């Protein structure tokens, strides 16, 4: 399927490059609807891969790449359930997310996240699954999970550890603060900085360079330089699911979901 338009995203193949565009109101939150369509996307890799050199992941929403997991959906589905069913639901959802992000991580073509605006939590984890992050100067990255009593659960910590130094990771995780694109670039997380509103254009230029290369050499290089940290991903998954059952998490999510102020509750 060379093009697809769903409820939360769309993709289009053209000249060896796939553009996957997240387009889900209000802030490209990753819930069950987007997850289902991401599963359709990775299922199409078998058809797309032989003719694809690059995939660009971008956002159609103003001011946001993705705000991360759909916490409202997560809370509203989990709250009425007994603890065991809640845990089973979380394990199913997060397990499916891991399968999709692992497929993107290992995609047999080069993946570029073209980031503008907010790139938080699960959105940040999606960008980290890509091979190259190109960010405009207004992009912001954060793992706010600890502020809700959680850790990143979509593979964020192992993938961040793969790319940058541990001191930086501790700062980002333990404070929950967001960092700007300039800082992310200085830390080696962002490969290329673009002017405001220019990340997608820069990503397309980068893609056109990558399409010139021999596909076998390109795939071999990717295999060599970007191993997937499967054991750490498994441990993160288990820890995330364990923390999810904590009453403190449900209480924090409740406050977050019910906060109607201009800035949602975060401690």
């Amino acid at each position: 399927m060379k093009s697809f338009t769903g409820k939360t995203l769309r993709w289009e193949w053209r000249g060896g490059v796939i553009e996957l565009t997240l387009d889900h109101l209000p802030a490209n939150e990753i819930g069950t609807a987007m997850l289902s369509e991401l599963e359709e996307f990775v299922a199409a890799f078998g058809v797309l891969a032989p003719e694809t050199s690059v995939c660009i992941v971008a956002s159609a929403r103003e001011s946001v790449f993705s705000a991360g997991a759909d916490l409202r959906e997560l809370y509203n589905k989990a709250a009425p359930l007994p603890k065991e069913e809640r845990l089973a639901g979380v394990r199913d959802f997060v397990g499916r997310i891991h399968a999709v992000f692992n497929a993107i991580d290992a995609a047999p073509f080069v993946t570029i996240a073209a980031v503008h605006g907010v790139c938080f939590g699960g959105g940040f984890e999606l960008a980290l699954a890509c091979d190259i992050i190109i960010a405009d100067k207004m992009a912001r990255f954060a793992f706010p999970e600890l502020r809700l009593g959680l850790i990143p659960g979509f593979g964020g910590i192992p993938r961040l550890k793969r790319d940058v130094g541990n001191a930086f990771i501790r700062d980002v995780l333990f404070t929950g603060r967001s960092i700007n694109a300039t800082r992310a670039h200085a830390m080696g997380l962002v490969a290329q900085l673009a002017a405001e509103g220019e990340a997608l254009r820069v990503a397309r230029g980068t893609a056109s360079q990558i399409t010139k290369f021999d596909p076998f050499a390109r795939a071999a290089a990717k295999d060599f330089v970007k191993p997937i940290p499967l054991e750490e991903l498994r441990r993160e998954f288990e820890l995330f699911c364990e923390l999810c059952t904590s009453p403190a998490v449900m209480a924090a999510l409740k406050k977050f979901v019910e906060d109607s102020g201009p800035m949602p509750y975060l401690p």
Partner: protein
Amino acid sequence: MRTQQQTTQEVLDLAAKHFNVPAESLAPEDDFFKKLGIDSLQTLEMLSRLENHFGIELPDYEVQGVSDFKTLAERIQSRL
């Protein structure tokens, strides 16, 4: 080194320019959420603009609960 007054004025000017509000309508004590009519995403956008303009990092937790330009400028001043 900027004075506190200069920093506050630059914050007001930057907010007016990027959120299309007349500069003369903004005062240091104003609630920027109400005055600019901004939501959480736009607040983070403002944070990025301020960091880029002043060449600093301003952690979210330092501006958590801040809603007026004057206090925001004080937080920035402490990072210059």
